[in-house]
């Protein structure tokens, strides 16, 4: 055998770093309408190529084309646009509130609004999401009060979580939104367990699991896929690939030339890849996967291809690791603009109405913010009682905590 020489260690790098010209020429984008829409009881083995393509509905001219189009009415699309715009405005205001010191922390959804807003509309009442910290669109699209979200962000006296949780770690059983944890990927397997419980109970409700591209490297991602596949759990396994895990480009988590969707194939799970900035495509694929789950056909893995246009969090500066204009070069564009253009094309929307809607939404968000701030912000005004710090560790307070509470003087 020939001498192979010294081994060399491989560490993947993104195509471009700060100072460079953004380049997404390596990203293969399927034509809108080109990917077929299989029957929901399709044999997973026959659609393996879908894990390597991208399902898209909206084309460059703002038209909805192909087999995944036609599921939503104009009214539903207008509502979707409004929800995405609301989330974007909410984000901007809360990001500013963080800069003003009214809260300690915030995380935006900029560029990813379609994923959670459109997905929510594919679920039925009673279904349960197990979100990460970047799916607040699930709450917005379900009509969860913005004031309550802000109360949580401000940790004020009206905070439903009594000031115990970091901002944006919402919880609402009523709105099918499982309590967010700071520990990544843990909720992915919990979603599968919830779905298993629904099946064990002969219920009709399904679960939706959420994870980002970076967190797929966590072992609980694997746990979830094994359990979901083994027990055919009624769960939609969502992977939001926004290209970045803080400063780490997705190639570090993904490795090689595969896709995140392709991970599902090894478990025999039907796996689709979808344009995450295409509201119609996200909704259509979510509906397909949710229907499969509800009809007892088992789990589906969906990779949403999108781009994290904003900073990772209010504590992050992306210009330190990626070109400043990279989001402008992202080939799948902006979800709000794309849906707006589609609605204009349909003749049910206009630039004027859009500008008017923007102003209205801003007024609504500002009004909610005023109301929330009347209950206090992190360092000013009303705050949760110190007694609340000791409550809720257990259903009943054990003696040692009672002693500590007394020592704390509350």
């Amino acid at each position, binding site marked *: 055998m020939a001498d192979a020489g010294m081994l060399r260690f491989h560490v993947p790098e993104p195509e471009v770093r700060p100072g460079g010209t953004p380049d997404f020429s390596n990203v293969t984008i399927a034509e809108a309408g080109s990917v077929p829409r299989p029957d929901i009881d399709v044999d997973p083995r026959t659609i393996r190529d879908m894990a390597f393509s991208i399902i898209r509905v909206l084309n460059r001219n703002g038209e909805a084309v192909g087999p995944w189009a036609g599921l939503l009415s104009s009214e539903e699309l207008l509502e979707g646009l409004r929800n995405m715009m609301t989330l974007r405005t909410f984000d901007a205001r809360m990001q500013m509130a963080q800069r003003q010191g009214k809260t300690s922390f915030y995380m935006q959804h900029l560029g990813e609004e379609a994923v959670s807003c459109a997905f929510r509309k594919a679920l039925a009442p009673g279904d349960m999401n197990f979100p990460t910290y970047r799916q607040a669109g699930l709450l917005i699209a379900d009509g969860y009060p913005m004031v309550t979200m802000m109360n949580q962000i401000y940790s004020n006296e009206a905070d439903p979580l009594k000031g115990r949780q970091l901002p944006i770690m919402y919880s609402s059983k009523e709105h099918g939104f499982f309590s967010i944890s700071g520990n990544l990927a843990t909720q992915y397997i919990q979603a599968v*367990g919830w779905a298993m419980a629904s099946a064990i109970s002969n219920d009709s409700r399904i679960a939706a699991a959420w994870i980002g591209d970076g967190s797929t490297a966590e072992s609980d991602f694997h746990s979830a896929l094994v359990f979901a596949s083994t027990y055919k759990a009624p769960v939609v396994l969502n992977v939001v690939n926004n290209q970045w895990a803080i400063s780490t480009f997705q190639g570090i988590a993904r490795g090689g030339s595969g896709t995140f969707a392709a991970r599902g194939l090894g478990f025999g799970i039907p796996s689709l890849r979808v344009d995450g900035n295409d509201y119609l495509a996200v909704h259509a694929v979510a509906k397909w996967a949710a229907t499969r789950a509800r009809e007892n056909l088992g789990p589906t893995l969906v990779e949403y291809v999108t781009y994290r246009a904003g900073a990772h969090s209010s504590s992050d500066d992306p210009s330190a690791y990626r070109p400043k204009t990279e989001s402008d070069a992202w080939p799948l564009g902006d979800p709000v603009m794309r849906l707006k253009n589609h609605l204009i094309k349909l003749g049910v929307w206009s630039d004027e109405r859009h500008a008017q809607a923007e102003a209205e939404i801003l007024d609504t968000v500002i009004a909610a913010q005023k109301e929330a701030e009347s209950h206090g912000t992190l360092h000013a005004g009303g705050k949760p009682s110190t007694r609340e710090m000791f409550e809720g560790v257990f259903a009943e307070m054990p003696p040692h905590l009672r002693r500590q509470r007394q020592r704390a003087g509350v």
Partner: protein
Amino acid sequence: MPRRTMIEAIRDAMDVSMERDDKVVVFGEDVGFFGGVFRVTHGLQAKYGKSRCFDAPINESGIVGSAIGMAAYGLKPCVEIQFADYMYPAYDQLTQEAARLRYRSNGDFTCPIVVRMPTGGGIFGGQTHSQSPEALFTHVSGLKTVVPSNPHDAKGLLIAAIEDPDPVIFLEPKRLYNGPFDGHHDRPVTPWSKHELGEVADGHYTVPLGKAAIRRAGSAVTVLAYGTMVYVAQAAAEETGIDAEVIDLRTLLPLDLDTIVASVKKTGRCVVVHEATLTSGFGAELSALVQENCFYHLEAPVARVAGWDTPYPHAQEWEYFPGPARVGRALIETMEA
């Protein structure tokens, strides 16, 4: 009253709980068809079906993580980790998720799960079949930690744990599965059928969490023990002739501090015994609590007898395991101090 081994008593607890409440589900590695590597779940799948008792993939994080999701849905999962030594992959789910869910969601979601795991040494289990990781759970706010020492308690405590609204770590000393063990490995083991605590009533009863039991009343020194060490401590008292009061803690968290303090105030002396390694073990917490609450009654320093601060060895089993000779020595030293 029927006599049962600890294995049978724990199985009976699950049987009774599954019969009473169809929200109780049991799963883990080899737990279903086969009935568990220690036979603890034997017959449950046949009786309740595969939806209620089933085999899981070899994935501890998955077992606990899926159980948390089930609990959030409204079921009451009672899951098994095959050996406590293998709970580490599930530690994230146990400590950051199960323990915190009620608190972080302000009761919006809760986690009424029980995680059973065989624990402890004295069986030539070596490094990964002998560990006693209870201190890694008692340090976590939001978890309850239970260690039964006999069939009667095991059944009553497990039913109480399953009915508890919060997550409970249920550590089963596998050395006690078939009979009590006092550390005299050179003598034949007597089965539970010969022991009064092997009497296990049929049907439903509970032993409340957070209540200790006095196994041997005494006036000279208080011994705080749990699991296998309860029998070792009793043997040490008999063999040294020291009138020790042996307290079986049964639940480590919440702890029955009142029973402990009343005993130490009476005896003025205290020896803490556990199999787990010494440094930062649960004995340190016990010792500190006794010192804080009984300082003016103490006639001697609180002594601790524990496993050495080494991984659990194989060949040196009986040099590692804190047997009656080591515990007896601590009793004598505490009396002489």
